[in-house]
């Protein structure tokens, strides 16, 4: 059942894409900054996924869970630090000025990674507990794929609950919708921005750790990942998390099946989809409509 495998593959892609895009969307929707460096955080996470197991002394069954727990948290802490020292200074600035630190971060992270881990990319072992294959509805696929899809779904639900069912979620939605209003309501935006940024980077961190066994740890991932996130967000609508989910599923599937048709250039289908959306619904499938 080749189609079945492609569906699973598409879902795996979708999971990762969603995690990336949701974070990007959050930062843009709330902090109003386009974080081009988002892919660089993702890339860092893949290297953390490579390195952390050594700190935990090799491959016990626990290692993977520890990496999955700690890796994104470490990254989130880094993200918070970056937000406080850097991004805080550029909120509200000219969009050109806002772009610069994000570009700078990409360069800096790239060379820091190179300094620590060298030029060649690294392979990351699949987690012990997921090395086999499982079978569902007559389709056989690596169990790790199943885990990624489940993890993605769980986080999507958790994120939805956070944004739509908690007080904090109401606050960030208020800020995203109407900046002046929330300022006049006395909401402590500074702390919230840091929180949002940290969560967004955490999401990128999870994406990175989950991807690492599949993609390895490589410096080129920074640009690839952020472009993936861009495409999802353009199709789904910037600032819309449901949009990111819908678009991630769509693109994951298109990419997966595209590989069946033109293995060399599945990207063409994704861009075709994006072009279509741009013509029919420029602000994205679920984006906020202008006019």
């Amino acid at each position, binding site marked *: 059942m080749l189609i079945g495998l492609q569906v699973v593959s598409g879902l795996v892609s979708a999971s990762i894409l969603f995690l990336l895009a949701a974070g990007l969307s959050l930062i843009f929707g709330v902090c109003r900054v386009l974080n*081009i460096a988002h892919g660089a955080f993702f890339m860092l996470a893949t290297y953390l996924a490579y390195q952390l197991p050594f700190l935990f002394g090799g491959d016990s069954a626990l290692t993977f869970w520890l990496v999955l727990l700690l890796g994104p948290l470490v990254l989130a802490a880094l993200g918070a630090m970056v937000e406080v020292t850097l991004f805080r200074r550029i909120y509200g600035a000219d969009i050109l000025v806002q772009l610069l630190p994000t570009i*700078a971060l990409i360069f800096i992270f*790239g*060379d820091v990674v190179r*300094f620590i881990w060298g030029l060649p990319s690294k392979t990351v072992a699949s987690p012990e507990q997921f090395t086999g294959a499982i079978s569902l509805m007559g389709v056989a696929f690596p169990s790790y794929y199943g885990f990624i899809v489940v993890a993605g779904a769980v986080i999507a639900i958790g994120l939805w609950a956070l944004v739509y069912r908690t007080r904090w979620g109401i606050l960030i939605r208020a800020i995203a919708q109407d900046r002046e209003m929330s300022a006049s309501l006395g909401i402590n935006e500074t702390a919230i921005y840091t929180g949002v940024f940290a969560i967004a980077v955490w999401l990128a961190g999870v994406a990175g750790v989950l991807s690492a066994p599949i993609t390895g740890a490589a410096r080129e991932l920074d640009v690839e990942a952020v472009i993936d996130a861009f495409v999802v967000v353009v199709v789904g609508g910037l600032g819309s998390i449901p949009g990111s989910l819908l678009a991630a599923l769509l693109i994951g599937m298109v990419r997966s099946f595209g590989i069946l048709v033109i293995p060399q*250039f599945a990207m063409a289908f994704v861009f075709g989809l994006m072009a279509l959306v741009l013509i029919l619904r420029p602000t994205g499938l679920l984006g906020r409509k202008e006019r």
Partner: protein
Amino acid sequence: MEVTGGRRRIGYAALILLLAFLALLPRLVPLVVVVQATDVLIFVLFSLSLNLLIGYAGMLSLGHAAFFAVGGYATGLLVKYLGTAMPLALVAGPIAAGLAALVIGFFCVRLSHAYFIMLTVAFGQLIYTVIWKWRELTGGDDGLIGIMPAPALVPSSAYYYFVLGVVLAAIVVLHRVGQSPFGRALRAIKDHPRRAEFIGIHVRRYQLGAFVLAGSFAGIAGGLQVFFHRGMFPNAAHWLTSADAFTAVVLGGAGYFAGPIVGATLFKGLAIAVPRVTEYWFFFLGVAILLVALGRPQGLMSLLPRAGGRKP
């Protein structure tokens, strides 16, 4: 807001000195430096073309290298497969790049700001991937090689003069465009897009026009590059190449016509000097960009006491 007479005379004198220096360069410095200067000139043109978008129209494109590469590859492919003579092949560069810009721009200008930036990056990478994967046509990452300039222009100093001539001509044209009604309209769009709409300017169309014009000039630079390096590789379309030009523009100052010229020269100078000290060029670059962003976002040209005249 005219520059005073005295300052203007100094400005002209400096310009004449600079031109004289450039004209005499091959006699003043070793050949290696002449080759580097050629490289700088091409990069200056590329950066100036980008500033038509950033500085004038306020369109932040991070995928401009796509047009540089399309121009270069178009020129190179004509030479390689059709044996086209150099002048004709060079003309094809901006035409191909302009067409690519028309198609890509059509999609990108439909949206603004963050979306626009994202799309330019995405399309830039699309072009890179197409060039890289289409091995049969472009040679993939083995590159398009063996593209020789016309025999008279093979010597380094001869090619240098050729590039100098083309780039100076392009600078004159770009400067004129900046002063033109079209240039003013672009600046108005950057300043207040809604008001521009309400004095009768079809904003989308003008933005597309700027995109195509900028892409075409990048295509000229690409054509010059392919003969300069005797070939081209996919990395000419890579995001990093776009980021280089973007950095050059910002370093020098997007708000000044000469900004990209200063920025591009400085950038190339650093690109030669820094690797002698450390292999971590990108770290250095990142820190430099941060310093500019946090310290002097208007760029280096803003340090001069309005000697360059008002904003472009």
